[in-house]
């Protein structure tokens, strides 16, 4: 089975720092890593390949630093990585990113299945896999918690109120949730072998596209955390009751109990 996986190199939100004065994110040089849900998508693709044979190719779109994610992509075991970069792609919106992914997929040409994380773990737009499907006029299955390829493709999508089990035609686009699997952690020897591998490196202009976006982000701020931070120690059993009483009194004053 020939699978294409869309993989984004996201900001590592856990490590993201915000300017204490302005509340704005300090993105310059902020650590990045493979988006967690995309990693699950790659793992799912690799598992299918291990069962059925075929190839796993990846498409990555982003600013030049995005190339760094290829090492991990190859360390996990993908066959070929395609990367499209441009300095301005940090400002891309979901429509643009989806268009670029689709142009790259058209270069790859043959595929049976397209996988992607349900959302990137920095932007969380939850849109790109669906847009890729719409642009390619393919069926789309969101937020898969399980997938089996056995004669046909069966996808279980967690749609909030219920889990929908679909029999999906091929080719289709499936986005995966964090719950779908536990991705492998590549060993050092896999990393070392991967570092010798080449990848397909494109500039955005090679695809004849420019950075044109409809969504314009005006401002991003972290709202100030203004909480009272009244903390009592209750590790010492003799002091526990006093501490708890103090808190309960405050809660009563706040009128929440």
């Amino acid at each position, binding site marked *: 089975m020939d699978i294409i996986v869309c993989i984004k190199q996201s*900001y590592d*939100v*856990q490590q993201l720092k*915000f300017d204490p004065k302005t509340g704005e*994110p300090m993105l310059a040089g902020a650590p990045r890593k493979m988006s967690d849900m995309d990693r699950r998508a790659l793992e799912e693709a690799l598992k299918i390949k291990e069962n059925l044979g075929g190839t796993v190719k990846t498409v990555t779109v982003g600013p030049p630093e995005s190339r760094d994610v290829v090492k991990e992509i190859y360390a996990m075991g993908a066959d070929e990585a395609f990367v499209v970069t441009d300095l301005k792609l940090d400002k891309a*919106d979901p*429509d643009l990113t989806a268009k670029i992914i689709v142009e790259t997929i058209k270069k790859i040409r043959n595929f049976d299945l397209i996988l992607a994380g*349900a959302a990137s*773990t*920095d*932007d*969380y*737009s*939850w*849109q790109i896999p*669906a*847009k890729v499907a*719409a*642009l390619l006029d393919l*069926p*789309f299955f969101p937020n898969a918690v399980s997938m089996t390829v056995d004669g046909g493709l*069966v996808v279980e999508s967690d*749609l*909030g*109120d*219920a*889990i*929908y*089990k679909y029999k999906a*035609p091929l080719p289709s686009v499936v986005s995966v949730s*964090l*719950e779908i699997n536990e991705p492998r952690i590549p060993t050092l020897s896999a990393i070392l072998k991967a570092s010798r591998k080449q990848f397909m490196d494109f500039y955005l202009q090679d695809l004849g596209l420019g950075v044109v976006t*409809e*969504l*314009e*982000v*005006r*401002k*991003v*701020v*972290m*709202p100030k*955390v203004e*909480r009272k*931070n*009244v*903390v*009592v*120690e*209750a*590790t010492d*059993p003799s002091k*526990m*009751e006093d501490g*708890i009483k103090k*808190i309960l009194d405050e*809660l009563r004053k*706040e009128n*929440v*109990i």
Partner: protein
Amino acid sequence: MEIMVYSENEKLFKELVTAASHLNASRITSAVIGSKEDAEKAAKYTDKVLFVDSSELGEYKPKEYVEALCNIVKGSDPQVLLVGGTHKGNALAAMLSVKLGEPSVTEVSDLKITEEGLMVLRSAFGGVAVAEVRVGKKVFTKVASPKIACVKPGFFAPAEESKNGEIEKISVDVKSSTEVLEIKKKETGAGLEDADVVVVAGRGVKKKEDLSLIEDLAKALGGVVGVTRPLSADLHWAPTWVGMSGIAVKPKLYVGVGVSGQIQHIAGIRNSKVIMAVNTDPNAPIFEHADYGIVGDLYQVVPKLIEMLKS
């Protein structure tokens, strides 16, 4: 200006109606993909209902439902389409936007219309920050070409019945290559979104049986119990969790018991009036986000809390 609203979720639909009226819509229409009864319910909230009978369409399948939604939009002339921000809604919005050639934005918590067009506030970086976004460079011009915004549940009050809208049936002719094999309903999270008091169990709670202790605390406080993501997604102690990509709560009182306070969880509790935490680790991040904190062993503190609440 006409604003159309769509959500498969009844409560969220009512919230969207409120959001639409905040945008000073002169006319609010609703898209319904469901039964005639669903259309009649929607007619009580909006000026007009355009509905596709889901018995002609089958159960939710993104590609096919987008066709239906597209026909509905083309059957009217909305400048803005508000979609309920669920997995189902987000998928439809994303695909519809491609079909219409209009932008779609998700995770929206607030909206307004200015001379520049539709401006929204959306969650950024998974809920850690808020972004102000202009939706679409071109201001409203084309017919039946709405900007699309997916609104998060719980940010607008549900609208009251006030209208007697006209109902129009829209036809759709879709051949599907997808089969719905099974639909397994999930138990919903015990009314967490609306609860006044929410007590959440985190990793500090060691065994599933210990959740009964948390339930006792919730009962003593007059609230409901939730869990953090690891307890639901990894340990399967509950069907859903409180946090980003789970349920967002906005109670008067939130109590985190054995909750460390990862950003993803905080994103789901940020709008609580009062946040209280019980944790054995004085360095747990949750204490930064809490109004009141108790550093101690939950297995000793919680029983004491219950005892002192009852007296």
